[in-house]
Structure formats: C-alpha cells, structure tokens
C-alpha cells in the first residue's frame, strides 16, 4: 500500500486505488487445491465402487490369487511410504530455507516415486504377458483402470516434482515456490492415502476373497 502511494507521488501518475502487487493469502491457493483433491477423491471413489462391483467377475480367467504377488506389493507400498516421509523432510528443509537439502530430499522422493512406478509397470507387463490383460475379464478391466489411474497420478506427480526442482534451482525458495511445494506435498500425501485403499481393497482383500 505504501509502495503504491510512493509510486503515485514519485512519478506523478494517476493515483491507483487498488493493490498493484499480488496479495493472495497463502490459504486461498491451498484451500482451492484441497478442493481439487477432494474432487479427485470422488473419481477414485467411483473407480473403487466399480472394482467392488466387477471385482468378482473373472469370466473363467485368472483371479487375484493367481495373479497378485503380495511380497512385490509390499515392496511397492514401502516405496510409496518412504517417498512420503522424504517429501516431509523436503518440506521441513524448505521451512528452514535450506535450498540444497530441499532439492536433495525432493530428488530422493522422485527416485522412490520412480521405483514405485517401475515395480508397478513390471507387474502390469508380467500380467499382460501372461494373457491377463485388461481385455481378459471385467475384474481385470476394473483392476487396470483403478490401479492405472493411481499410477498415472503418480507419473504426473513426478513430472510436477521435476518442474518444481528446476524452478527452485533457478529462483530459490521464493514465497511462490514454497506455495507450489506445499500444493505438491498435499498431492503426494493424498496419493499415498489412495494407495492405502488400493493395497487393502484390491490386493489384500482380493487374495482373501
């Protein structure tokens, strides 16, 4: 406000009666992003409902017991969980305004995310090679849709992470970059919450079924 007044008096321009500088309360963006996450949550709820309805229709094809490799799923789960905690460490370093440690933890998070994606794609490839692709039965269609949508979210999260690493590397931990990192933090932890639903509802309960 004082800057506008100075500008007007200095340059002799017409007085400006609104704030020329950005004045977003940080909360606005984060609340908006939270609402996006909630709508994303509804997408996953629909996919979970679809899997719940179709998950027993094997069309005389392979079922969860033959297809799912629980030790591999456990490794996958730990990858995502570890990436969650390393992102938390990145946020802590960000709060202390340490640029390099933030970037290092973001890099570690990205590596765990890539490991998760790699294991998941290996599993998909293995299933499709066995003839258990999405076209085999309603169970497999809904499985690939639900787990694939989650994997797609993780992929976009990694792209976002790389973009933010470049931006933080170039411009430092500015207020804008901190806000972006907070949004990605919500996104990343939200994906971990969805994965809890996936490994419980799809993998563990599939084997129990």
């Amino acid at each position, binding site marked *: 406000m004082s800057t506008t007044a100075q500008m007007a008096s200095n340059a002799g321009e017409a007085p400006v009666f609104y704030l020329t500088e950005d004045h977003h309360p940080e909360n606005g963006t*984060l609340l908006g992003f939270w609402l996006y996450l909630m709508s994303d949550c509804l997408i996953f*709820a629909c996919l979970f409902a679809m899997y*719940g309805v179709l998950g027993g229709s094997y069309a005389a094809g392979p079922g969860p017991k033959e297809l799912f490799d629980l030790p591999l799923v456990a490794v996958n789960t730990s990858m995502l*969980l570890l990436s969650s905690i390393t992102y938390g460490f990145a946020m*802590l370093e960000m709060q202390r305004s340490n640029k390099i440690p933030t970037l290092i933890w973001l890099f570690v998070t990205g590596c765990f995310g890539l490991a998760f994606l790699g294991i998941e794609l290996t599993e998909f490839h293995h299933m499709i090679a066995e003839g258990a692709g999405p076209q085999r039965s309603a169970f497999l269609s809904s499985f690939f849709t639900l787990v694939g949508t989650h994997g797609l979210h993780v992929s976009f999260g990694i792209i976002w992470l790389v973009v933010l690493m470049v931006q933080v590397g170039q411009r430092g931990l500015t*207020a804008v970059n901190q806000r972006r990192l*907070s949004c990605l933090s919500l996104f990343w932890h939200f994906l971990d919450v969805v994965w*809890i639903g996936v490994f*419980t509802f799809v993998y563990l309960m599939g084997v129990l079924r």
Partner: protein
Amino acid sequence: MSTTHHNASGAHGGADEPHVHSHDHGHGGGAPHSTLKGYMTGFVLSVILTAIPFWIVMGDVFKSNHTATVVVLAFAFVQIFVHMVYFLHMNTSSEGGWNMLALIFTGVLVIITLSGSLWVMYHMNANMMPPSVHDMRNMP
C-alpha cells in the same frame, strides 16, 4: 521497480509488511504444523499399520476370511486417519475449518457412492442371474 517482492528471508514471505493481515503471513510455507516429530510419528505408525495387514493376509493368521477382511479394513481406516493427521496436517482449525468441512462432505459422498453401488449392484446380480437351462425350456 519498488514493487518487487522481498523474499530474501524465504520462510517469512510477507511477515515484515506492516499493513493489513500481517497475521495471515506468519507462515510462508502454508503448512505451519509440520515438525520432524510429527512426520516421524506418522511414518512409524504407518509402517506398523501397513505391516500388520500384510502379515495377517500372507501368514493366514485368521482361520475365517471374513474376520481377516474386517480386521484389514479396520487397519486401513486407521492408517488413512493417521495420514490425514500427520502428513496432510488436517485439523478442525486449518483454513478456518473449510478444509475439514470439504473433507466431511467428500467422505459422505464417498460412503454413499461405495455402499450404494455395492448394495444395488449386488442385488441386481442376485436377481438377474441367467436362468438355468431347465427354466429356459419351460418358458412360455
């Protein structure tokens, strides 16, 4: 220009602006409640709450699958709660309560979607079974 931002201090995005809403700017990161202790508590709880369901299923701990399903679901529910509190920093006061309101609303919609779909489609399935060959022969 004199309007360039003063971000040198990083963590205190706009705390030195003396004018309006200075209390809104106290935490530049927007996630004011994250502490190492909070993250570690959440992580340890998550590891425990993940390991036990996998152990239950892989080790065939319960004789009845029904019991195992209920227990595994209960662990997932608790773990989602832990993630919400320790990683997503949910509480009733963040964003003036709007976060929590949106979450509760979404939760209600999720429960309606899931239970409604499963309930309706299960009964559809049970009532629309393809008729047996014997019934087909005797159809009018």
